[in-house]
């Protein structure tokens, strides 16, 4: 009786077969999901380009350099929106990145232990605010505040710089930059906190042992160590700023114009698509919005590749030096 019970073919096989079946199922499921994502991505690009085709055929590459956006004459061009997108994103980064790095440094090195978790959670919660709520705040509170207090001060004291000259406006490029910077801060801050925490403590202690002050330690050991990651996180923030549509639509004023000043209304590519897609009066105007979307995809791709190139290069340089 006991010998039959110990027959290996009767007992272990069923218990081994079951996980094997589960494994195949998991592999199929996960593989199908991954392939589905690739397919969706490909279809998305296909459909966007297909919609853009009439406009691509009509305007060609001249679309990029034309500043017309006129449904009455059926002339469309992306120039002002490309510049507007780059301008708002860059200014948002100029405002946000130093702040975010300072926050990351504070949370990882300087803050008393009791403050680290609550402040860190608050910074991450900032990223959870829906952009439409930020935009609403931009319309009702921040825009009027900028127009009433900040922009007049800027034009009084820094008006000799064209960027800060002109008539204050509650809707315009500057409010869009501020809203975008608020969206970028939590991304860069939480990544840079993790980066700073990843600096090996023997490196930091070594610097301190050599007599470095805390600032010297941050500047000469920590910042170089994490520079690749910081650049990558900045590019991530840039990608966020380039693609944001709703909140920008709410505060930028939607004007097809480029000004030397940050005060008057302008527009970005994403914002123009969001604002005008419903009820385009002509077939060509709808197609031109799709053309804008194609250009936006290309810019996002370039940003992504550039981020990887830069961070990879910095990391290798650092690896070589160490």
């Amino acid at each position, binding site marked *: 009786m006991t010998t039959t019970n110990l027959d290996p073919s009767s007992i272990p096989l069923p218990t081994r077969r079951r996980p094997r079946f589960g494994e195949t199922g998991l592999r199929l499921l996960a593989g199908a999901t991954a392939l589905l994502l690739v397919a969706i991505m490909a279809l998305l*690009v296909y459909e966007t380009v297909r919609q853009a085709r009439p406009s691509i055929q009509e305007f060609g590459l001249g679309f990029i350099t034309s500043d017309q956006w006129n449904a*009455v004459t059926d002339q469309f061009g992306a120039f002002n929106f490309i510049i507007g997108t780059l301008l708002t994103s860059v200014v948002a980064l100029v405002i946000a990145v130093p702040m975010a790095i300072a926050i990351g440094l504070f949370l990882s090195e300087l803050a008393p232990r009791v403050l680290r978790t609550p402040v860190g959670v608050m910074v991450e919660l900032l990223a959870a605010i829906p952009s439409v709520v930020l935009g609403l705040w931009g319309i009702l509170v921040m825009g009027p505040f900028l127009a009433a207090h900040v922009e007049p001060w800027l034009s009084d004291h820094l008006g000799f710089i064209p960027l800060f000259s002109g008539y204050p406006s509650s809707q315009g490029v500057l409010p869009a930059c501020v809203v975008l910077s608020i969206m970028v801060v939590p991304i860069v801050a939480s990544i840079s906190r993790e980066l700073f925490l990843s600096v090996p403590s023997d490196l930091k202690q070594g610097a301190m042992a050599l007599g470095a002050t805390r600032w010297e330690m941050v500047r000469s050991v920590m910042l170089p160590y994490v520079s690749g990651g910081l650049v990558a996180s900045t590019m991530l923030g840039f990608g966020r700023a380039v693609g944001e549509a709703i909140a920008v639509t709410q505060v930028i004023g939607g004007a097809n114009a480029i000004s030397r000043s940050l005060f008057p*209304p302008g527009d970005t590519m994403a914002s123009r698509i969001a*604002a005008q897609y*419903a009820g385009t009066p*002509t077939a060509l105007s709808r197609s031109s919005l799709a053309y804008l979307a194609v250009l936006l995809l290309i810019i996002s791709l370039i940003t992504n590749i550039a981020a990887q190139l830069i961070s990879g290069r910095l990391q290798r340089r650092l690896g070589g030096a160490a």
Partner: protein
Amino acid sequence: MEMTGMQRVTKTAALAMALAVVALAAACGSSGSSGSSSGGGSTSTVLTGAGSTLVAPLISQWEPDYAKSAGITITYGAVGSGGGIDAITNRTVDFGASDAPLSTDQATACKSCLQIPWALAATVVTYNVKGVPDKLKLTGPVLAAIFSGSITTWNDSQIASLNPGVNLPSTHITPIYRSDGSGDSYVFTSYLSAVSSDWKSKVGASTQPAFPTGQGAEKNSGVAAAVQATDGAIGYVAVSYIAADSLNEALLQNAAGQYPEPTTKAITAAADAVTTIQPDGSVPLVNPPASAPDAYPMSTYSYAIIPQTSPKAKQLKAFLTYAIGPTGQAFGPDLGFPPLPSAIVAHSKTVIAKITT
């Protein structure tokens, strides 16, 4: 993690190339038109619609009343005139609603859609200038000059000469317009094109015109909010928003040289003065002739946009007949919609008769 930066870049670039190939396929592929799905479903007791925010308050009165009297549920999404045209073009709803008639391209895309005037309303110019009272007078050419950017301050002599006795400040003028496709933009720019040849040649009339200056805002509510938030702002909204948001209204000069308020009486006067129905079924009311001294110059019909063949033709015909009939129109005056003139009701009835399954 173990990948070097270069490897990752290579992989991204490879993926990008793959996507580029897809894009190229799209660019070269046949432009075969995608068949529009006939939406709606088969439930006969529900009619869905989408479009104009202007007409939404009226439809929300029809909904419960019509459900009670006819047992048909109306579901309406106030997504804006442009959104409504898109929805009916894709046949994702049973009816669309727009304050602007279909443009040529839109009419082509909508494939034999009928436009039926079913409500009468107006677009009103509103402004917010500290220290300036309600009911400032403006003429069409002055309004065109403001929105072209050639009049830039409120104390400009051209505005002052129309308003003797009003103390106008030197506040900078901020024109505010609709950034989305809007029937109000169409009415507003049609009026400016009718009274200013300069505007007509440089900007023209459209649901989404290229305004030479100023800032855009989304929907009526966005324009109302932007005007209220900005000292020196001037914009245009549907007439029902003036009372709802207690906004200032500007009085516009009509062809007779009068400055009528946008009351139901003045809108009716405009509708009575214009009875010509265009070949496309639209009835443009802007800038009515001088023979109607009481007519408000920026009045407009709001249109129901209906596919000529619909699986729910019977229900649609019944609902539209109700809407333009005495019961449906009776809800209007309290909300700022004067009843339709009888000539238009007769015209709409003949159009409704064309709907078939």
